[in-house]
């Protein structure tokens, strides 16, 4: 399988009153055709910002200081705004976290669903309408003809998220970025939406970048997992390897903090402490202040990435286990 999206050494900075803050630091990962990659991490670790940077939709005060985002070999960062606009919704699409606010309240579902078709495919209003009904059927909404005439406030959260997915997939994009698509939904609806994304992915051969903080979502959807902490990748690998054999203490913490329904009643594991402030200058490993295994070297030097059969970990604990050949300079 070929890489459809490659992110190389992406650095994102934010201009604030206190100066420039680094939100994402040397982010590199790739997505293969038809693959689902889950980006996991707690709130504020830079997941959503990375997703927005792929779309070219960083907020006004954010900018990409360094790095490349290659889509089918073309660097998206080198494209002119108008060329980038033609990519969005056409080749690369996004589904947002909050379906309640991601639809324009003053227009009907039909109007909004016709937008991408009319912009990218040059459909007439009538053609777009027919295609819209077909899309709504595809995402499993009942009575699609009537839905086209309804306003967002007349639909439930799950139905709106289905509409958002229909809009995002209208032009059969190669990549779908889903930014916490189920976080704002009821648990019963969550599974339906994940199934829908999986089904659509199979049907259209779309690659999916799923951003989430929910390990349950990862287990259900991912082929590969990228674990982020404080703007950096700390672990990356196949979903099975990462779940069965987590290497980084942060990944272990994340997996331990998932509540277990079966088995005896135990205290829920939490990772002590909180994310370091973006403005803080961090010496050594970014996780050391919360790491139960922190060593002296962690406090003075940032760890490199160690690779073992495609399973990458950024932790000094791997130092002892690895042989010099495996060291990938970070």
């Amino acid at each position, binding site marked *: 399988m070929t890489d459809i999206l490659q992110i190389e050494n992406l650095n994102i900075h934010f201009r604030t009153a206190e100066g420039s803050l680094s939100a994402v630091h040397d982010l590199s990962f790739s997505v293969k055709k038809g693959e689902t990659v889950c980006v996991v991490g707690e709130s504020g670790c830079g997941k959503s910002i990375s997703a*927005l940077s792929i*779309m070219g*939709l960083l907020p*006004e005060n954010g900018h990409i200081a360094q790095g490349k985002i290659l889509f089918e070999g073309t660097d998206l960062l080198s494209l002119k705004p108008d060329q980038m*606009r*033609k*990519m*969005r*919704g*056409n080749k690369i*699409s*996004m589904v*947002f976290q*909050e379906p309640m*606010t*991601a*639809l*324009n*309240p*003053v*227009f009907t579902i039909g109007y*909004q669903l016709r*937008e*991408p078709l009319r*912009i*990218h495919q040059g459909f007439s209003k009538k053609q777009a309408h027919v295609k819209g009904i077909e899309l709504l*059927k*595809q*995402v*499993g*909404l*009942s*009575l699609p003809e*009537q*839905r086209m*005439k*309804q*306003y967002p406030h*007349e*639909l*439930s959260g*799950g*139905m709106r998220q289905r509409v*958002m997915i229909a*809009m*995002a997939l209208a032009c059969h994009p190669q990549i779908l970025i889903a930014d916490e698509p189920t976080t704002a939904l009821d648990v*019963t*609806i969550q599974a*339906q939406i994940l*199934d*829908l994304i999986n*089904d659509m992915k199979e*049907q259209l051969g779309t690659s999916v970048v799923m951003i989430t903080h929910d390990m349950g979502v990862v287990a259900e959807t991912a082929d590969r997992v990228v674990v982020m902490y404080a703007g950096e990748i700390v672990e990356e690998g196949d979903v099975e390897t990462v779940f069965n054999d987590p290497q980084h203490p942060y990944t272990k913490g994340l997996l331990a903090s998932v509540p277990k329904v079966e088995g005896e009643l135990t205290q829920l594991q939490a990772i002590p402490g909180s994310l370091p402030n973006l403005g803080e200058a961090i010496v050594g490993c970014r996780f050391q202040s919360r790491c139960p295994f922190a060593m002296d070297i962690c406090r003075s030097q940032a760890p490199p990435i160690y690779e073992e059969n495609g399973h990458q970990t950024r932790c000094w604990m791997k130092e002892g286990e690895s042989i010099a050949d495996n060291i990938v300079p970070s």
Partner: protein
Amino acid sequence: MQPEVTQADVVIPEPKKASHKISQTFKKLLKYKLAVVGLIIIGIQIVMALGANWLTSYDPLTQNLSLVNAPPGSAGHWLGTDNYGRDMWSRLLYGARISLIVGFISVVVGTFFGVLLGLLAGYYKFLDGLIMRLSDLMFAFPGILLALLIVAVLGSSLTNVVIAISIWSIPSCARIVRGSVLSVKKQEYITAMRSLGSSDRRILFKHILPNCTAPIIVFATMHMATAILSTSSLSFLGLGAEPATPEWGAMIAAGQQFMWQAPHMVIIPGIAIMLVVFAFNVVGDALRDLLDPNMKKQG
């Protein structure tokens, strides 16, 4: 494979149209008693303006020097005559037409440019500073002084009054619209639209503008009152309508020197101006309460 549709997803849809929302807002408006009074007054003015030709048999400009300063209730002239013997009722009717037309045109023109500049200022950061500082510059003048200045430069006529009031209403409208644009453009649905590849122009005019209509409607209604009052003020000062024109402000100015002999010459157009300004203000107030969720009355 088709994803399953669960029971929870099936909600019986009831298609609604945009016109439905307008009629709903109108129905709610009728619950505000003062607004109803205001609407009735505005309705009367519109009837007066449209039906001026049929509601009186007198020409507003024809003089009858044998019957000057006739008090209200005189035979044939139920509102009396002025100092040239012109029928007051007929002048009031044609004055309603002038004040409505002048108010309407200046509000439409002013709002159009105000909305345009406000949209640009709110959306494009590099234009924001320029447009807002220019509007600050205009705010530095008291409104009527600015209108006086413009009329003084262009010469006194009703057309120039319209131009003056339009220009003067642009900055306040631009500022209101800019505020709404700033809040609307941060909404997730705007980012979502951008993620679908909508162009800036499309987002600005098709997605942001319709979400700013509420404050624009309120502004236009309230500004109608200001525009009518300003037209009369300028005409009263002799900077608007020509002396013989049956403009309400000009009628008051003409009646001033006959205050003691024929007070109806001042009082009748005065009451007309007061009622109309009051009407547009209360309707605007009610609309604001209705359309702005933050201003909703408790209970």
